[in-house]
């Protein structure tokens, strides 16, 4: 599938700011399931800083805006050729040992309810079926309801609430997979999804679980499936904060308001 991405993030400040610094995970991963045809990231009034591929295989790019500026927009545009690998992250070069992803983070801290949910893996005959069982358990435990949670909602809170968005599904899945002894991580990316006629949020998140023999495999509990050719993978981390496509700060920030527009379209070949 040839997917065209147009993603604009607008930051507007109530008074001009100086010294804006951002760290981007905004470039598609390199693996057999996706090939970048063209890609560009631009920041208004920005200076491109250091860039490198980190140990997890993500392309990281620093940006700074000296200011003072009243608003900043980050524009991502490009074309990616994708194919369906049934969720398997084949051919992705990375150095971080999978054991690192057994650690908890603030957003994925364990509690008894999560531990109970992790029991879904108990009767599975092998790790792959365990991961599927866990993903399904999350899909069943949390109903998709935009606005029910916020950016800082933890796995534990989301599960207690029983509803949330892809971020919450992913946090919960990461937490219980780790509890079941499977390294798991949070993945951020894009999703092209209009096939069922229902508009979905095009900025998306899902989990990856490390399975012996297969390596990292994606599980999208929010959509009850594994990532396929509709998905574009950007980067990963222990939780949403670590995997965030944009992390930023401004030196003299007053109030900041954020607008995001993402469009992912299929291009006829």
């Amino acid at each position, binding site marked *: 599938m040839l997917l065209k991405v147009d993603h604009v993030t607008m930051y507007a400040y109530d008074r001009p700011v100086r010294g804006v610094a951002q760290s981007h995970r905004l470039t598609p991963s390199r693996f057999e399931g996706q090939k970048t045809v063209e890609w560009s990231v631009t920041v208004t009034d920005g200076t491109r*800083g250091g860039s490198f591929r980190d140990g997890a295989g993500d392309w990281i790019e620093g940006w700074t805006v000296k200011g003072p500026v009243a608003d900043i927009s980050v524009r991502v545009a490009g074309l990616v050729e994708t194919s369906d690998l049934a969720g398997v992250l084949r051919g992705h070069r990375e150095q971080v040992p999978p*054991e690192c992803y057994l650690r908890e983070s603030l957003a994925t801290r364990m509690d008894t309810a999560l531990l109970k949910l992790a029991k879904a893996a108990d009767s599975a005959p092998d790790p792959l079926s365990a991961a599927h069982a866990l993903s399904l358990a999350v899909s069943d435990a949390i109903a998709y309801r935009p606005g029910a949670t916020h950016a800082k909602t933890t796995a534990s809170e989301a599960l207690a609430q029983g509803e949330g968005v892809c971020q919450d599904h992913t946090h919960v899945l990461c937490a219980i997979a780790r509890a079941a002894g499977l390294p798991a991580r949070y993945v951020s990316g894009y999703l092209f999804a209009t096939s069922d006629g229902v508009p979905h949020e095009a900025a998306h998140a899902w989990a990856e679980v490390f399975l012996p023999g297969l390596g990292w495999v994606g599980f999208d509990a929010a959509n009850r499936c594994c990532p396929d050719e509709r998905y574009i993978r950007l980067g990963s981390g222990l939780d949403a904060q670590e995997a965030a496509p944009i992390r930023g700060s401004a030196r003299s920030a007053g109030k900041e308001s954020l607008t995001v527009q993402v469009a992912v379209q299929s291009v006829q070949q």
Partner: protein
Amino acid sequence: MTPSFNEMYQNGEVRIPYARLEEWTRGMSPALRTQKQAEAEALFRRIGITFAVYGEGGDPDRLIPFDMFPRVFTAMEWARLERGIKQRARALNAFLVDVYGRGEIVRAGRIPAALVYQNEAYEKSVVGFVPPKGVYSHIVGIDIVRTGPNDFFVLEDNCRTPSGVSYMLESREMMMRMFPHLFRENRIQPVDRYHSLLRRTLNSVAPAKCTGEPTVVILTPGHFNSAYYEHSFLADLMGVELVEGADLFVDGAFVYMRTTEGPRKVDVIYRRIDDAYLDPLCFRPDSMLGIPGLMDVYRSGGVTICSAPGAGVADDKAVYTYVPEMVRFYLGEEPILNNVPTWQCAKSDDLKHVLENLADLVVKEVHGSGGYGMLVGPKSTKAEVEDFRHKILANPGNYIAQPTLALSATPTFVDEGIAPRHVDLRPYCLVGETIELVPGGLTRVALREGSLVVNSSQGGGVKDTWVLAE
């Protein structure tokens, strides 16, 4: 517990390195002593060498107690220590490069993967990045205790930002001012090269992108930090700027400091703040101490951070157990300095032993420092021991235990005259293009009679440490 080794007197005889000090103390009247002590205190206060005590109110500018009785090593004793310390510093750095690279030592099964990769101090974000010259820990502070004439043990390693070197330098300065004749009578190796060696070490790890003389800065959490004096002292000695996070900013691919003449590029940051506070875009997002974007500059080779983020995994108290193994694995040598036997409560056999012998052991938190959160079994009440038992049972992985060592004692001026007090030693090994060690270190002394806790925050003082020339 066996009686402790007295470094000055053995079998009623004065040991050779202390020979001349015997005379000196005999010649010192109580009045002179009081006068000298007051002089020392006034000098310390004047130069502002004070420290703040964690978790206590009171005077924020308390003086660290200084004991005028020096602690002495012979050239031979030191030669062995020096070899052992340098060996250890090399192995620790080799370990860091390895576990952030291919992880050979883990693959070889010489250290458990979980201990390294699930360690809180293991910094995933720097995996695959090799810092300039392959050095992670540029200043390695190794805490050493002595139990006999030839028995030295490493108590712990400090690979992040060991503090206290200012006391080493100031104690020497103080002694030379107050007792110059002692330096004529005893041939004492100087330590005052430390700051130029430190500067050279920091210069030597400047990033490849830096052309010309590197700009070095010391990054402090600020003047409320207990070690602020040391930060400003070192900055002053080296002739580099002492900066806070807000003095630095990222522009493009480099870090700059804000000066009255405009931005100035910074090449090497000797930081005295923890990893978690370095960069809110990579670590704790709520940190006000850090520099947003710093880690991206660092990982793309625009600036060097000393110690390198992630270095803490080597000085974790549970990883400590494996340092002798690192020496063998990376250097193919036998360790010159031994570890104190250590039981890891994470292991069930060890835990059993610890719980059965709690009253005889020293128990420490794996990530603790500064002498806090520890149990000294023989010095604790039954209730304290039981209280600690519950803590260990609640989270065994968080604790390690060691036998209560009979730390050596050196003569120390106390109210009643001169009496032996327990001491340890922290030398500061500098690792850059070369490995350097000045002959000496910080001797910390437990001033309370019988106490084994030498931390300044817990009633410890400092002494000048002499290494005699051959």
